[in-house]
């Protein structure tokens, strides 16, 4: 129980830092650091999504870039239609674009969910290497599709000329956009923490350990895993939508397997299956990029070493490492 308490303590420190540091930067008039913190929040959110499938459910999805990118493209496409007043679909009814985040988010999540049901139904019948490969293959298919589809920029990507809006806020102001991202991250973290301890989370975590046993007591593995996969995809899609708005640009890179790998790195660096792991992992990643990236363009070499160290010596990731030390004190 001591371990659990200190992890809770560490989580609170991380949240406090995530909120305080950007405000500090804001007061010091350093918008660059505010946007850096915004990236941390968004990438952590993407990681929280993947962690649900990977950490809790043991589903090694190497295709979460698909959902991240869908979130981004839904945002970009809706915004571009809204800005040039062309309806997305015109027939007997005509569907216009929108620049309202409150409409964009649910739509992005819904479309990601539909795609996740499809990918999940085909891939969840397999496991291990085959599951990794099928999820990767789907993401790559979408990646190449986005490159070769000229309507929305193809290889060049799609700019979002104005950051989408949120009622009552000026999203163009970095600190306000940061607070939107940070609030969403906190809400999702709260939701996942509830889910973890629910009947559903109980079954999901048992499935990761022993699928045959779970089936033999009357819980159908496919239903639980598919649901977790879909929830996981929608969270990552929400992050993708925010990421598009942060950069005011979407490109096929969001769909590439590098992105899938990066999200996986956040999860593993922070600690597989730990609720706040992706936040720790994404923070460390961005920190490495900002600090080491300033010294050398080969900073990813050091990131590789770090990842190697975590995998070899700290299976609980950064959070496991820190909480264990606290326990020994």
């Amino acid at each position, binding site marked *: 129980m001591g371990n659990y308490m200190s992890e809770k303590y560490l989580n609170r420190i991380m949240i406090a830092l995530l909120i305080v540091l950007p405000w500090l930067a804001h007061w010091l008039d350093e918008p660059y650091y505010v946007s850096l913190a915004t990236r941390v929040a968004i990438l952590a959110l993407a990681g929280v999504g993947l962690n649900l499938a990977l950490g809790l459910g043991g589903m090694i999805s190497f295709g979460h870039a698909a959902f991240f990118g869908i979130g981004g493209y839904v945002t970009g496409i809706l915004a571009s239609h809204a800005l040039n007043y062309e309806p997305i679909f015109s027939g007997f009814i005509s569907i216009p674009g929108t620049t309202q985040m409150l409409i964009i988010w649910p739509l992005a999540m819904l479309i990601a969910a539909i795609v996740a049901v499809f990918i999940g139904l085909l891939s969840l019948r397999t496991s291990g290497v085959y599951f990794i490969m099928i999820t990767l293959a789907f993401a790559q298919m979408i990646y190449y599709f986005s490159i070769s589809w000229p309507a929305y920029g193809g290889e060049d990507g799609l700019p979002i000329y104005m950051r989408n809006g949120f009622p009552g806020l000026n999203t163009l102001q970095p600190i306000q956009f940061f607070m939107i991202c940070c609030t969403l991250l906190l809400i999702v973290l709260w939701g996942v923490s*509830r*889910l973890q*301890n*629910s*009947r*559903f*989370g*109980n*079954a999901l*975590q*048992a499935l990761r*350990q*022993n699928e*045959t*046993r*779970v*089936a*033999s*007591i*009357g*819980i*159908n*593995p496919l*239903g*639980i895993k598919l*649901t977790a996969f879909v929830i996981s995809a929608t969270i990552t899609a929400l992050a993708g939508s925010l990421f598009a708005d942060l950069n005011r640009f979407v490109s096929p890179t969001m769909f590439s397997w590098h992105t899938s790998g990066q999200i996986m790195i956040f999860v593993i660096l922070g600690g597989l299956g730990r609720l706040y792991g992706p936040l720790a992992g994404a923070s460390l990643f961005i920190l490495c990029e900002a600090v080491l990236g300033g010294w050398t363009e080969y900073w990813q070499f050091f990131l590789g070493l770090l990842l190697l160290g975590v995998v070899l010596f700290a299976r609980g990731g950064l959070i496991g490492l820190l909480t264990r030390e606290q326990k020994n004190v």
Partner: protein
Amino acid sequence: MSSPVIEITNLSKSFGAIQATQDLNLTLNFGEIHALIGPNGAGKSTLIKQITGHLQPDQGEITFLGQNITQLLPANRAKLGLAQTFQVSSLIMEYSCLDNLLLVVQARSGSSFSFFTAVRDDQILLAQAHNYLQQVGLSQRHHLLASALSHGERRQLEIAMALALEPKAFLLDEPMAGMDPAGVKHLIERLKEMRLQAPILLIEHDMAAVFALADRITVLDYGRIIATGSVESIRNNEQVQTAYLGVAP
């Protein structure tokens, strides 16, 4: 004469050239312990897996309480009331004893699609889980991870999980394997109690236990039934003696 709980008709399963189950017919009746014996590789575990749904038969039919379950998923068969224990202990290793049972009680008592209410706050579920742990004498060990249990304790946890399903039939695959004589003796008494709750299809190598418990014995060899009948008739069957019991005729 009431209809059997489990009825297997003309069941066949082969892996390549090996016939693991050959045109097999078997019943499990209310209130009985039906022991399934035979040498290693006789197809006992393959048969159990076909009953639980972890393997699909090539041919034949399995009915459970009058319902054809041949095409059902393992989870749906369990929901109908088929409980199994595994030859090699199959537990949720990173869960405590209590959490292992909580999962079973949760599965039996409703849907697992509840996302916001903490399952460990559900006092009714907790009480039930504790109750089954107590029945097998693991109350003191409830907080231990399944991976930290001794072999014998793991076997008992498996039994508790089967009990917690409140099943209509038990399928026990070598429950005594690797247990010390005291443990075996204890388990024999437990199985006598369990049969009052639901009939047991028992695979077991410990012949003393089988002779002490079984109402009927079926002997399998190369996927076929070579004999079936009362304990006495099996004990005196020459074919069985040469094939399995190792007694010179």
